[in-house]
């Protein structure tokens, strides 16, 4: 052993960890990820690719109307046409951009509202915390789908109001989660040290607390995204979501739902409304796989070898 026998501060035991860049750590974790997580990543990757490059990938226009409505599957219209003669395959691809884009925007907005208020409530405590928490309780007591339908009828179903309404309703859940995980961090000495230094609320929120509660928030982001996605699809199916001619998977299911009854004559016709539904289901499952893996990793329950 070459270690010297005298004491020095730099030589204290405590350097077992090898230094790795963030990218190396990510690669290492990915290599250990289970097959379900990989499946999730690949599916999400494909969806994002389609959503980003939809105008290049789609063979026809989003609202381009052809002569034959309800055309069968063939070489020109891979998945046939819908009730007014629009190419289903193209609308499926454009639908990815619209549905995923709107769901993503909504989730981000709900995290901005819910996360911000949740952090503020956790750090400040007192009457602000009480006020916000009770207000959230009231909002959560009303069934959110019915509340959303009501608000959409009042404000009209534009994409903007759709995003705002769902974001506000969903932010209640984000608020509760953020507040409860942040409260565990606000009692730490380093937060007290920051307060003693005279730091403002914004700094404590962003720099001291947020980095330490990221893992549960990221996991929640995935789940929230799935739920928002399903809510938008449900609202569209009910006719109050994304309005025509904008392509969207929820309304595509509704528009073509009647084709299911032709299953005994042409199985492909019955499949047509099922495909957008399957697209919704697949993405939800994929996001959940990834979230599961991430939660398992960050919860520290997997430390056995």
């Amino acid at each position, binding site marked *: 052993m070459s270690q010297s026998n005298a004491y020095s*501060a730099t030589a204290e035991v405590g350097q077992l960890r090898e230094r790795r860049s963030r990218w190396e750590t990510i690669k290492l974790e990915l290599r250990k990820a289970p097959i379900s997580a990989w499946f999730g990543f690949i599916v999400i990757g494909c969806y994002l690719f389609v959503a980003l490059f939809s105008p290049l990938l789609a063979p026809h226009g989003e609202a381009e109307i052809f002569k034959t409505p309800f055309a069968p599957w063939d070489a020109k219209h891979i998945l046939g046409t819908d009730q007014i003669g629009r190419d289903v395959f193209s609308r499926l691809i454009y639908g990815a951009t619209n549905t995923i884009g709107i769901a993503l925007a909504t989730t981000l907005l709900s995290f901005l509202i819910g996360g911000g208020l949740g952090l503020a409530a956790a750090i400040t405590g007192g009457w602000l915390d009480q006020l916000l928490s009770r207000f959230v309780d009231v909002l959560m007591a009303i069934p959110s789908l019915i509340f959303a339908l009501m608000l959409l009828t009042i404000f009209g179903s534009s994409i903007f109001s759709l995003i705002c309404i769902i974001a506000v309703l969903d932010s209640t859940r984000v608020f509760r989660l953020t507040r409860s995980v942040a409260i565990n961090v606000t009692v*730490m000495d380093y937060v007290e040290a920051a307060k003693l230094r005279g730091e403002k609320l914004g700094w404590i929120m962003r*720099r001291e607390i947020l980095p330490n509660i990221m893992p549960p928030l990221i996991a929640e982001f995935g789940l929230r995204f799935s739920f928002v996605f399903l809510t938008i699809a449900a609202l569209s199916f009910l006719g109050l979501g994304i309005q025509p001619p904008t392509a969207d998977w929820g309304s595509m299911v509704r528009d073509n739902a009647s084709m299911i009854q032709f299953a005994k004559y042409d199985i492909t016709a019955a499949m047509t409304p099922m495909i957008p539904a399957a697209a919704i289901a697949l993405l939800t499952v994929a996001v959940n796989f990834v979230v599961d893996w991430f939660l398992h990793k960050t919860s520290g329950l997997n430390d056995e070898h």
Partner: protein
Amino acid sequence: MMSTDNNDTKNTDSTDENGQKGDILLEMRDVHIDGFSDEKWHHIVKGVDLTLRRGEVMGLIGESGAGKSTLGLAAMGFAQPGCKIVSGTIKFDGMELTKASENEKRALWGSRIAYVAQSAAASFNPAHRLIDQTVESTVNSGIRSLEEAQADARTLYASLQLPDAENIGDRYPHQVSGGQLQRMMTAMAMSSRPDLIIFDEPTTALDVTTQVEVLVAMRDIVERFNTAAIYITHDLAVVAQMADFIKVLRYGNEVEEAETRQMLTSPKEEYTKSLWSVRALTKPEETSDDVVIEIKNVDAAYGGSVKVLHDINIKLPRGRTVAVVGESGSGKSTTARVITGLLPPMTGEVLFNGEVLPKALKDRSKDQLQRIQMIYQMADTAMNPRHTIAEIIGRPLEFYHDLSGKAKQDRILELLHLIELDQTFYDRIPSELSGGQKQRVCIARALAAEPDVIICDEVTSALDQIVQEGILQLLLRLQRELGISYLFITHDIATVQAISDEIVVMYQGAVVEQGLKSEIMSPPYPEYTQLLLKSVPEMDPDWLTNLVDDRL
């Protein structure tokens, strides 16, 4: 009377069955243990030999990370999750534990080998009564019937000086104090009359006054039943009271092994000597009339109702160190919270350089905040785990002194140098540092503000002794070079000796006395000061024996 007889017969019984005092009980040869972390196997214990005879107590000491606990557990044939015993032999009473099956080892644990953990509070099941937990393994392994075992447990409670020995076992873990719980755990370990007990830092989490009680009880009972024991600790004074011989570990290797007295008087190795020198650290006391902080008639309460401070008066002279001592719950940390403004006092005031400080934190100016800095007991939780060392030290620089870019970077390196760390620490995160290094970074963060006063709240009590010495020397040097005043909160008298000029003794939220170190540390004492001073273990193997004799 009944109970004493009972014990005596048991004692002779067990000696008859299990062999004579002096027989070899545990023999470990060339034990290597690896631990898995960070995607690799690391050597934790690198070929240690160990021989323990019946009735002997071995002290195992070393700084954290030396492999003490791992070796202690290996003596039971146990490796923690993530560790494995790679090679070597562990023979317990003729049985090879490295080759024994899980069931064979299970039969030994709790009946012939027992383990006393550091944190008793975390080791008891809160949902069961204490006596049921005490006798559980004894009854399960069929050594005694339930009634016999419970009667025996009550006798053990009595011999461990637990109050109301007849009924205390019917309580739940949260209904007894920490020191009592630690003695309960010793009773639990003793219940089956094991051949070997492993004590893993059993008194580290206790107050000095409580520690004495637990030590006396543990030593008595180990002697009475002729049990062999391995006592793991980093407190040299404690191990001197408990052990027949001492083994020093470092980096998973044995440094030195010798009989206790010999080890204390003439250690051979350089490293052992440096361990011993810790307690030699003292500071010549000086006083000053230039008072930087004065606490005047302060009463404080939590939630406006529970009053915890009663009429506190403390003066902190400039460039000097005032140590605030007292057991936990005496209001030491609350006093610090009043000074920093985290807990506004009900009445009274805090003067800083003769000016009254606003009571609440939010009313104080940036300049007032900058002048008083604080260092915490747990360096782990005092630093944000997601910030690098440069961010942690750099923040006060940009916040108070508007430094940025190159100037900030240079100043960070300068501060790192000042706390005896080098530039390789610049972009590390706290989890990559040892306990002592973390505390140094906390000191650097306080220094970065360029304060007049630093409040140190038990800053060394979570650290090993050799690391403690390093930190204390650093603080002393910084005081000499920069003229900072310290308010040093501690319950460790050795630390007080090392660092303070003046001492404030606190008890139950009130100041018992304040004065120069030499005045407080010499008679006549108020009653409480005397108890506190007497409870501090000394580096003399006869200290505990003498203390017990004194009391009788």
